[in-house]
């Protein structure tokens, strides 16, 4: 496994150029986009002097009032970043970007994990059902996959809200937890923190709040998992070792387990790729359920041309996504002995 260690180190190093390219892209794209962030910040009523003043403050203009060229701004930004300084938000009290990210990130992680679990349960169950049964079941599962994939999150979210919250009144419409029940922060994930600290009322409240958003997100992503699982199971089912196992008298339920394990590599790949979908899904889910996460936060800051926050967030995400993909790769190696680095 020493080679695996080398692989991890190589992957982490490979992360640096990836992130650098992303930073550069985001930096320039944000500035090429029409729309002056300064005007977005000060609003329409501000006098011109105030605009100039703010530009100086943001490092867009030097003291003499001349605009600082983009390449210099870029270098300034990089040197700050290298020192671990993500900068401060351009708007609302100029709060440190890292603080803002950390305020919103745990909520998204919690929702993403919950949605992921729902989608994997649904996807694996239905997908293996379809792949195993074949025929009409397979077609039905195929249709399910297509429909859920095309579902519009605000729409399905609203239906769930209407049904479970307004009509039945058993689950809350929006929010993350009931007022005053927040558990002490340890991981920032309410479900976990409340269990660690043994605050069951908090746990129940958090669970009730996360049910509908997780279901919505999970349902939509489950389509992809269902499809991948189904095709993958079908493919593995066609492989000789299944017949060979049957010829040895291995019972079907054991064979299903082996088939699932073999189907899992493509599913795992899909899981890594789904992160992006999960993020876009999270934006809409978070909006629908007023979930205080990263998705809505980032979207809002893009609209305000909050350069530093958007840049910081993207860099942050690049690192997270790369880390997750690294974990996925390590999982491959763990599941499939043929893969060794």
């Amino acid at each position: 496994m020493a080679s695996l260690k080398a692989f991890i180190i190589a992957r982490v190093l490979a992360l640096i150029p990836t992130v650098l390219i992303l930073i550069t892209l985001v930096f320039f794209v944000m500035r090429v986009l029409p729309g002056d962030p300064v005007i977005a910040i000060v609003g329409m009523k501000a006098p011109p002097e105030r605009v100039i003043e703010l530009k100086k403050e943001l490092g867009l203009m030097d003291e003499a009032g001349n605009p600082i060229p983009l390449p210099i701004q870029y270098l300034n930004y990089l040197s700050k970043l290298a020192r671990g300084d993500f900068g401060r938000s351009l708007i609302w009290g100029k709060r440190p970007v890292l603080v803002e990210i950390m305020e919103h990130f745990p909520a998204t992680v919690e929702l993403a994990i919950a949605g992921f679990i729902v989608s994997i349960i649904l996807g694996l169950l239905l997908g293996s059902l379809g792949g195993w049964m074949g025929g009409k079941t397979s077609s039905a599962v195929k249709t399910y996959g297509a429909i859920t994939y095309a579902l519009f999150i605000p729409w399905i979210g609203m239906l769930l809200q209407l049904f479970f919250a307004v009509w039945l009144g058993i689950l809350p419409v929006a929010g993350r937890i009931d007022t005053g029940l927040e558990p002490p922060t340890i991981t920032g994930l309410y479900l976990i923190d409340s269990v660690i600290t043994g605050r069951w009322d908090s746990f129940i409240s958090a669970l009730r709040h996360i049910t509908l958003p997780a279901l919505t997100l999970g349902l939509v992503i489950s389509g992809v998992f269902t499809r991948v699982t189904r095709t993958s199971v079908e493919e593995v089912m066609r492989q000789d070792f299944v017949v060979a196992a049957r010829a040895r008298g291995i019972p079907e339920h054991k064979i299903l387990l082996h088939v699932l394990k073999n189907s899992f590599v493509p599913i795992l790949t899909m899981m890594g790729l789904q992160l992006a979908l999960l993020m876009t899904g999270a934006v809409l889910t978070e909006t629908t359920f007023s979930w205080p996460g990263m998705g809505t936060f980032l979207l809002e800051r893009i609209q305000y041309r909050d350069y530093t926050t958007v840049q910081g967030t993207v860099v942050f995400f690049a690192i997270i996504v790369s880390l997750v993909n690294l974990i996925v790769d390590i999982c491959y190696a763990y599941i499939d002995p043929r893969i060794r680095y």
Partner: protein
Amino acid sequence: MMGKYAKKRLAVSTAVAAVGIVIALIVGLIGGYFAGSMAAAPATATVTVTETVGAKTVTSTVEKTITSTVEKTVTSVKTVPAGPAVSRIVIGVTDKVTDIDPSNAYDFYTWEVLSNIMGGLMRYAPGTTELEPGLATGYTVSPDGKEYTFRLRPNLYFADGTPMTAEDVVRSVKRVMEINGDPAWLVTDFVKDVVAVDDHTVKFILKKPVAFFPALVATPPYFPVHPAYKPKEIDSDQTAGGVGPYRIVKWVRDVELVLEANPYWWQGAPKTKQIVIKFFKDATALRMALEAGEIDIAWRTLRPTDIQDLKGKKGIKVIEVPGAYIRYIIFNTKIPPFDNPLVRKALAAAVNRKAICERVFLGTTTPLYSMIPIGMWSHKDSFLEKYGEHNLELAKKLLKEAGYSETNKLKVELWYTPTHYGDTEVDVATLIKEAWEETGMVEVTLKSAEWTTYLEYTRKGMLGATLYGWYPDYIDPDDYTSPWVNASWTGYAYSNPELIKILEEASVKPTLAERAKLYEKAQDIWAEDAAIVPIFQGKLAVAVREGVEGVILDPTMLFRYWLIYKAS
């Protein structure tokens, strides 16, 4: 024969499906159980709350809770459990709080929050646009109109029991001037200096006579703030507040804000002990939360369709009043064809305001014929008098005079911004286009730009006709007139020396009667020039669950939490 084999497969997959159903059942059962347990939860929590909040207990404990909540908002858990039903009201909003700091907050919703956790020397009497004494008992003006002296109420305290004196007013106002944030101009444009004459007397020395200065003093930049606010920088998450009916006990940005009655408020304790603001990101969820009973009040901003729907719902009350929010078209008088007054007048005459209010906003807005809104003193329907409503005959006549005809059509671009004013904006623009084209002599191209771009282009004077909206800074006709005249942000779209003179005069005249006369005249000139054409005025709508009383709204658009209560 081989059917058995298929059967086996079926058995396996049925088992898989069964597992799924079992999981679903468990989730359902748990959900049901939670629903049951939640109903029971608040009842058990009641006792603790009444004990901690009930009486004006020892000062030190109050201080402690405040400082601990300020530093670690998230850890302030056990202190604020579900309160007794009657003394707690939950308000849902889709707005957000920017900086809980009057030195930089410059948006309506944050001003509302500030008005509930702080107070000004002057304030508006609830339900009116009239000023009344707030922290001050009254004021005197020097004969030259350049010095305003306010006398403070005796025994004013911040929410933690710290006494408030004239020095705090001076410190706070100077802090706003020093930080020079977004709303600072409300101070710096007018105030030269502010001094504490004694502990209970504050004197403002102005740069020039300002007739509406008491209205300015009622705005948040003039609110005295707690000494805990950082003296020289914006303190966006500072929860110490000022001298107001409530104090912040918990603040989780974009999630919720919990306010508790300030035991030291000069007017006595508000009716409702605890106000919880829940921040929504979606208007539909806001509406559903009201229907589900998760919130007692759905405040800014419900969609027009939701308001219509909620009006018929049992157990829900919708309250509407005219708001101080106005919408208008800016014609840039430097860009052809809008440099021609005849064109501007013709377009002003053709606008179909009623159709916009009824079709797009389902009656949640009112047609407006002057920049000074309905309900404010000196308001005059100048545009209606001059051009009428949707007056196509007049429009055609004016267009002909300007040299246009059915064959030689006037070609114009109308710009709008798609999201900043809500998703209804494209409909507003479309109806204006339709009304103009109804003359048969105009061809309109609709163009849109995203908000920041829109502002930038406008500022640079690149757009001919644009749609904008206005929330007032201070409730005075001056705030509905001077910001457009010779203004950089409109790209200097409109300038009229006569008007400038009248407005300047109106802003310094000390008596209301004199000022009103001048503003009436200004409105007529405004309509004659037709450079900036009012379209409609917003209505404020709030939906509350039955039993919620004391909702008083007025054009200031600030919800006064200290007046609301639950009847039962």
